[in-house]
């Protein structure tokens, strides 16, 4: 009896659909990537409002202060007490004036406060900002249709 040699098959699957899908996914993730996530701490549960629609234009020189329910403040990636914030705000003000050479009155303080934080803490921080010559303030809320 004659024995046949082992048959070998070479297969080359069509990779085009796979590459198409992969590129679609890459483009989708590129477009949805949020680079401003550093200014949106997940520790903060914002109060909701149906009037707080996202603003169309970007704020001029926004400075985000995030106030946790414990009263601590997240500013520029650091967590600090409201009392320690004063020094950081002064440094920010001096940088805007001396390094950027811009008017401090054009800077906008964006306050992202937790819904359970005491209003007195928020007011204390606003006052601290005023003492550091900041004048423009916006209170941020989560937009939610009711």
């Amino acid at each position, binding site marked *: 009896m004659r024995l046949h040699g082992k048959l070998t098959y070479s297969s*080359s699957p069509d*990779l085009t659909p*796979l*590459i198409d899908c*992969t*590129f679609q*996914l*890459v483009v989708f*993730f*590129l477009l*949805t*990537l*949020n680079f401003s*996530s550093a200014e*949106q701490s*997940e520790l903060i549960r*914002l*109060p*909701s*409002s*149906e*009037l*707080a*629609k*996202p*603003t169309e234009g970007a*704020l001029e020189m926004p400075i985000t202060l995030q106030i946790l329910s414990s009263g601590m403040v997240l500013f520029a990636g650091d967590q600090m007490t409201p009392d320690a914030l004063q020094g950081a705000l002064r440094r920010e003000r001096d940088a805007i004036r001396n390094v950027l050479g811009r008017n401090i009155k054009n800077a906008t303080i*964006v306050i*992202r*406060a*937790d*819904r*359970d*934080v*005491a*209003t*007195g803490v*928020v*007011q*204390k921080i*606003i*006052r601290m900002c*005023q*003492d550091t*010559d900041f*004048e423009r*303030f*916006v*209170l*941020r*809320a*989560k*937009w*939610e*249709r009711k």
Partner: protein
Amino acid sequence: MKIDKGGGDFQKIEINMTPMIDACFQLIIFFMLSLRVFSPEGDFGITMPIASTRPSDISPSSSAVVKIRLAAHPNGNLAGITMGDRKLSSFAQLHNQIREISGLDSGGPAGAGGAEVELDCDYNLKYEYVVDALNAVSGYVANDKQTIIRMIEKIRFGRPRDPPPEENQGAAQEGAKQEAAGEKN
């Protein structure tokens, strides 16, 4: 000279796609891990000129100032709403009052009269009630669910109130704990 008229042997050139697919998958994994979903956020503008930190410096405004007082229980929950001298039962009632003042119901333009609202809040009042008050006074969503009708755009905080005494703060924390336990049950 021999001219090649075609019909010769073709040699298929195969590009090795493996490194490109590897790189694409790496990118996908990176983007998937760094993807964070956030709900849309919006802003309420408040007017806080530097002079308003000292009550004696507040110059009398030409427009009418509506003073709204928000009182708090020791645990931070809302105890009462007062507009001027009038006690109100809810933010809906406050909204209706402001709507009357702004003259929108009588056909006036949005934000008519240039009225200004000053919020006077207890120190320990939970911040969410402040946003509820801002919601009630600043406007409403029209029937088309898209357009926002603005009522009052000038909103400011009054003079900050002092924090409650230490013994009250202890009671407030105790009350908050009991409330949290009640919500869990």
